[in-house]
């Protein structure tokens, strides 16, 4: 008998800002809906370990999708005539349209890095449609990540983006996990990592607006790896402190890509959060 992962993948058409996008997603499990958002310049493969975790998928329908321009979600026609710069509005709309198109009722949203940042934005603007958010490596503002190096003509952007982000991981994380993060990063489209960091580090700024998130409607959980130097645990903690009711924790021996660089370690932090949501959060 062949050995299969429990993951299935397919495409769905999602209209964003009047443009039809063919969006790829993977899913596994049954139960409450958990929508997973990948990091800048990467794709849903980062969640393959979570999608194969029977302890999670026994209670949750886990869904991870590739944002347009990422992974197997091709960019919409005409992409070659526009500089790719992801904005907060388009990113939030893309996720909410995906959720509505699939008919997911009040899912929990789990996002990492830029996905963690937009999870907070969803809690702020769409809290009634989202049961809870889990933001990994997120804070109110991330400085200094929007750079042009990866699009310079004398720089190999694929290797550069992969190597630039490699050092965000913890030295304790397994070599194979870190190399897999590198591999996925090396496959991003030209300018896409940079364009994503436009959202993450330029366009999005929650400072002074943290109290606009109603954590009684949409609980907020923030988890950050102690080796993340792009978004430090202290910055995450400060964001949580500014959001009444938000919870935060520092993840020991983990860096910027918890679910991909060291899933066994990450799940020690994730599973208690999912259990708490199961027990306390209503659909």
């Amino acid at each position, binding site marked *: 008998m062949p050995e299969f992962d429990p993951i299935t993948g397919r495409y769905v058409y999602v209209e964003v800002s009047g443009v039809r996008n063919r969006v790829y997603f993977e899913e596994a499990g049954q139960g409450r809906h958990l929508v997973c958002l990948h990091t800048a310049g990467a794709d849903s493969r980062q969640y393959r370990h979570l999608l194969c975790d029977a302890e999670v998928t026994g209670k949750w329908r886990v869904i991870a999708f590739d944002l347009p321009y990422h992974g197997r979600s091709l960019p919409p026609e005409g992409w070659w005539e526009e500089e790719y710069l992801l904005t907060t509005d388009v990113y939030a709309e893309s996720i909410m349209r995906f959720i509505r198109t699939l008919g997911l009722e009040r899912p929990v949203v789990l996002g990492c890095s830029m996905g963690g940042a937009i999870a907070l934005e969803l809690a702020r603007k769409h809290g009634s449609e989202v049961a809870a958010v889990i933001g990994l490596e997120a804070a109110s503002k991330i400085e*200094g990540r929007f750079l042009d*190096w990866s699009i*310079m003509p*004398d*720089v*190999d952007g694929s*290797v*550069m983006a*992969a*190597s*630039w982000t*490699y*050092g*965000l991981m*913890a*030295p*304790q994380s397994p070599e194979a996990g870190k190399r897999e993060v590198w591999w996925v990063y090396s496959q991003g489209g030209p300018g896409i990592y940079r364009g994503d960091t436009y959202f993450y580090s330029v366009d999005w700024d929650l400072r002074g607006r943290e109290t606009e998130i109603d954590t009684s409607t949409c609980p907020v959980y923030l988890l950050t790896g*102690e*080796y993340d*130097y*792009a978004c*430090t645990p202290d910055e995450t903690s400060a964001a949580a402190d500014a959001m009444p009711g938000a919870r935060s924790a520092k993840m020991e021996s983990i860096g910027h890509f918890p679910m991909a660089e060291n899933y066994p370690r990450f799940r020690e932090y994730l599973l208690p959060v999912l259990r708490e949501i199961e027990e306390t959060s209503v659909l």
Partner: protein
Amino acid sequence: MTSSSMPIFPEPGWFEALREAVADDAEMAVIGRWCTLDLAIVAGEKTVLLRLEGGRISGVVPEPDIGVSWHVTLRGTREDWLTFLQPVPPPFYSDLLAMNSRVPSFSIEGDRGVFVRHLHALGRVFRIAQQMNSYSGSHA
């Protein structure tokens, strides 16, 4: 070379050990072919120039004089480097870019375009350096 006899950074013997370890590294043999640059490592008052050619350390020049130039300078205190040069450094000391971002006394200077173009191979060189004190005699 065993860990007990490992010369201490930034003594010349330490750079010789690094040269051997980089030359023996299987990954550098794959990714290093186009890695050619001159790199100054500044540790407090000491400067050591590393010449890399084709992914190998071809020269080590302690305290280069006014007649010598190079592309990139990695500048930190001796304590910065000793904190970085271990298999499991503490947060913010595990990577050159991390230190440049979060350790005020450490900086990546010079032609940063050269640094970025060689980031993949340089990352490997310094990860080898971090592992050196656990290397066996054959660097296997």
